[in-house]
């Protein structure tokens, strides 16, 4: 949080206003409080959705009502009152704007406070940014260049209107509405998110990126992302989050679905830094996310890379269904918890296709009084002839009041399949710390260096500009964990 505070202060210094801190003034029109068919109809109407979408939502809602919150994770989740939340909040002006000049300056100022200078990014990073403010996308850039390549990159609400055939075909095809409690909830009330379609043979000309943030108090955030990569295509997608300080817990239940066809590759990278609560465990985001990709075609590849430092509670298992022959799934993860944070995260690799291969590299860092659990499933189905998995789970403990846990599940139904699992748990050694200190490096810097070293294998999978950001984030997230 220190960095965020610093950013606010800097902005305050420069502009001399923003006395409201992080809560911007933009009036939003909200859905009625609580969750009901009425709320869902309100959302659907607000988004000017076609009838089939509303029906889909209502079906999911009916499903959700019959389900219960999962309790198998090593998490202590306070009861959530779903009737005490708002499920929709949108900035007032929702008409499409031709350029950033037309965007509410206060909105732009908020981006700046978060360190998301759109203009800067356009020039610097060659990254197209689809910025989600609260729940409605208000600024989309680089659309033209992408559309020249035939790539569709737009808010999912727009895709529902403009590309209904694609959405109908793929939405819910990887994660069915009734997949789990939180996915069902998301399917009922999702408000926005991104849609990406890469046509056959196209290599997406730039990294695609989305920044999410929660702005309204008490507003659950239900993002929905769908990425489809046709035969022989390639796309790299970056997702990054920051959230302002809040006292009340906020629920975030996103769904991300990826579909990779023959010889296609999807690289999905996340830096997650939702508000983790304060040092006493007060506040913070609940991050209950369902992410899954299916490698539908032969030799297709899906790679998840995540750096998770935020949220009070994280429940997240980005997974790969390796259907295609010789398809490849990868999961590279850094999960860092401090103070009273809890994380139960990992992956599922479902091997169906023959010759399918998967790699899991998980680095868990626990500090403070936090609990950090890796939970992973490797499933070799009978058809997974000669399939391979390699899993490496390393846990690092900072201090002696935290916990690290590793829960690997292995199911092998094919004798030719091979599964390798390695796990280690260690502490930051006093030797290493003293060595760094003796070179004049302060304790926090030393811990940050050592922890970043521990995460190196994962960090190097991140796109360059993200890696730098992520390294800083790790240092910031460890603040107060030593001494």
């Amino acid at each position, binding site marked *: 949080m220190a960095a965020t505070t610093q950013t606010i202060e800097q902005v305050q210094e420069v502009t001399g206003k923003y006395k409201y801190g992080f809560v911007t003034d933009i009036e939003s029109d909200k859905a009625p409080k609580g969750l009901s068919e009425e709320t869902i109809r309100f959302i659907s109407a607000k988004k000017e959705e076609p009838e089939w979408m509303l029906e889909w939502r209502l079906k999911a809602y009916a499903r959700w009502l019959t389900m219960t919150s999962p309790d198998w994770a090593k998490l202590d989740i306070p009861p959530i009152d779903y009737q005490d939340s708002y499920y929709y909040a949108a900035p007032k002006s929702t008409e499409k704007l031709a350029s950033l000049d037309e965007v509410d300056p206060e909105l732009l100022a908020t981006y700046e406070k978060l360190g998301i200078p759109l203009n800067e990014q356009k020039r610097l990073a060659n990254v197209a940014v689809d910025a989600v403010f609260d729940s409605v996308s208000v600024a989309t850039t680089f659309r033209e260049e992408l559309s020249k390549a035939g790539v569709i990159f737009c808010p999912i609400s727009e895709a529902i209107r403009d590309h209904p055939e694609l959405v109908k075909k793929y939405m819910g095809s990887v994660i069915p509405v009734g997949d789990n409690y939180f996915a069902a909830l998301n399917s009922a009330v999702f408000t926005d998110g991104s849609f990406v379609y890469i046509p056959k043979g196209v290599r997406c000309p730039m990294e695609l990126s989305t920044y999410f943030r929660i702005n309204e108090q008490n507003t659950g955030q239900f993002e929905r992302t769908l990425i489809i990569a046709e035969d022989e295509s390639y796309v790299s997608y970056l997702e990054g989050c920051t959230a302002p300080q809040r006292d009340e817990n906020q629920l975030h239940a996103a769904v991300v679905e990826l579909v990779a066809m023959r010889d296609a590759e999807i690289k999905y990278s996340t830096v997650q830094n939702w508000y983790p609560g304060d040092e006493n465990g007060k506040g913070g985001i609940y991050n209950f996310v369902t992410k899954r990709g299916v490698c539908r075609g032969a030799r297709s590849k899906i790679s998840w890379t995540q750096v998770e430092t935020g949220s009070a509670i994280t429940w997240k298992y980005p997974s790969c269904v390796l259907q295609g022959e010789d398809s490849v799934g990868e999961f590279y993860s850094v999960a860092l918890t401090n103070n009273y944070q809890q994380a139960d995260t990992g992956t599922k690799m479902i091997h169906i296709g023959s010759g399918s291969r998967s790699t899991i590299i998980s680095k868990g860092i626990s500090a403070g009084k936090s609990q950090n659990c890796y939970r992973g499933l490797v499933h070799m189905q009978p058809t997974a002839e000669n399939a391979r998995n390699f899993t490496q789970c390393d846990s690092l403990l900072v201090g002696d009041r935290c916990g690290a846990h590793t829960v690997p599940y292995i199911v092998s139904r094919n004798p030719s399949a091979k599964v390798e699992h390695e796990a280690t748990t260690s502490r930051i*050694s*006093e*030797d*290493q710390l*003293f*060595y*760094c*200190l*003796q*070179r*004049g*490096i*302060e*304790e926090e*810097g*030393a811990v940050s*260096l*050592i922890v*970043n*070293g*521990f*995460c*190196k*294998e994962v960090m190097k999978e991140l796109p360059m500009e993200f890696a730098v950001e992520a390294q800083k984030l790790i240092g910031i997230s460890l603040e107060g964990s030593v001494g």
Partner: protein
Amino acid sequence: MTALLEVRNLYASVGDKPILKGINLSLNAGEVHAIMGPNGSGKSTMSYVLAGRDGYEITGGDVLINGDSVLELSPDERARAGMFLAFQYPVELPGVGGMSFLRAAVNARRLEAGENEVDQLAFVKMVRAKAGELGISDDMLKRAVNVGFSGGEKKRYEILQMALLEPSIGILDETDSGLDVDALKIVSDGVNMLRAPERTMLVITHYQRLLNHIVPDHVHILADGKIRKSGGKELALEVEESGYAGIDDAA
């Protein structure tokens, strides 16, 4: 004249076990002192205590840099005050890139001195040049700190760090052990290049041959937690010939 580093009647223990039992040393700027002594006599312990490592209880005495006690300073503060320790067993830092480690160390000092951080490109150039003189390859610089280095490579890497950090007090704990003849020469040349009127060095060794390369101004014999004898460089020869048994308490 105030000593650059003064150790005054220093007592230290680990748990209930006393290890340093009243050490007195006075190192002036420009001088090189050698410490010899049997295994387990407390040489490494002394170097750790001087550097402020946790886990040792100082039960008496004082450590002063330029006349100011540093006992209250943390290890990183002492380092930035000019103290450098070349470890007997350098520590591996998996995944920590050498260049970023070296840069972090150099920047920590510069920040303390109110200077700007080093220019990245200039820094890389400088490191390469100094590494070259010490026979450290570019490949080694790219690897994680000390990971997969041979014993001799680790020792050379310690001296490289000393050369980059330019401390006023250099403590070298058995930097010669594990070095082949050529490496010994390279490392000694490196250390000799760092001899300077404003710097002092404390060289811990078991072997007289190192002292042929790095000729000390003073030699001290440490045994059972205490300096038993001090003298000129000829004292090292004496030890080489008759061992520690012949050393009496008459310092």
